């Protein structure tokens, strides 16, 4: 199976819907261990992504993802902007040159995104950041040969849930140290939303 520009667009528009619906929930997670702006920032960023990509006709997947990256970088305001922006930019670069995304290139793109996030955020796995969803997801996809909606969903979910017991070493939550234990990492929940909507798109396409 390959993902076409239309499907990548659908993925991002559905993700936007989740961010709008869960704005208050994400903010409450961020109020517990951060600065409380995550829900607002993600909802604002993805609303802008929708405004940008919905009216545009794309002939290749790389351009949809690049527009998404640039929009998130300039419109989000918090740390999520450069981080999610970097992730989508790396994914876009990995998929350059082909109209559609085949599984192998997409998997490589998620790996590149994970590496990009490590560099941008100067973080490692296990520090209670969005990396704790992206890297396990990259690892899982590398071990596969084809898109599988159910497995992408369950991997993303368990990775997101695992952040609950971690102690934050990065970002604003790091100021709380062990007091951050017992709370989900907001960036990981947002990352889970991205992968769970991707899973839905994959299930529709199979």
């Amino acid at each position, binding site marked *: 199976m390959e993902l076409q520009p239309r499907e990548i667009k659908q993925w991002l528009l559905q993700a936007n819907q989740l961010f709008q619906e869960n704005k208050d929930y994400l903010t409450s997670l961020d109020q517990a261990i951060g600065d409380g702006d995550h829900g607002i920032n993600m909802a604002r960023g993805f609303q802008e992504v929708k405004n940008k990509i919905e009216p545009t006709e794309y002939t290749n997947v790389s351009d949809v993802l690049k527009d998404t990256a640039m929009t998130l*970088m300039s419109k989000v305001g918090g*740390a999520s*902007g450069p981080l999610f922006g970097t992730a989508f930019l790396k994914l876009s670069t990995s998929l350059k040159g082909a109209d559609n995304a085949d599984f192998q290139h997409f998997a490589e793109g998620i790996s590149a995104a994970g590496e990009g996030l490590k560099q*941008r955020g100067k973080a490692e796995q296990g520090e209670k950041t969005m990396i704790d969803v992206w890297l396990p997801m990259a690892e899982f996809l590398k071990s596969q040969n084809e898109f599988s909606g159910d497995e992408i969903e369950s991997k993303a979910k368990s990775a997101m849930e695992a952040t609950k017991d971690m102690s934050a070493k990065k970002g604003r939550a790091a100021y709380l140290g062990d007091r951050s234990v017992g709370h989900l990492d907001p960036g990981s929940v947002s990352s889970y939303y991205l992968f769970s909507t991707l899973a839905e798109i994959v299930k529709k396409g199979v």
Partner: protein
Amino acid sequence: MDQTGIVLISHSTKIVEGIKDLIRQVNSDVPIELAGGTDDGDIGTSIEKIQAAIDNAHSPKGVLLIFDIGSAKMNAEMAVEMSEYDQIEIADVPIVEGAYVAAVESGMGKSVAEITETLKKNFG
């Protein structure tokens, strides 16, 4: 005389405005550009504001970026990666004291490389 430009990046417009006021007491002409807050002036940072500030502050002596916390650093790094300039540095120093020292050094005609060196000595 060309002077190294200084870009102050903070989550808050008031923080960078305040630092600029403080610096202007000791130096009235070093190029200082501000990138405080989001595009809407809320708490946060904006890569576009940072890029504009770099363009305005840049001189043949270079440009130095100083940031406060979190996303300010990441956005500064991205702005530098996208920038066309060679003589561009980010200093990881306390924003008030670092900006103050940088302004004094820039006023003495030091290049961005020299200022970065001094900041490293002073702030480790």
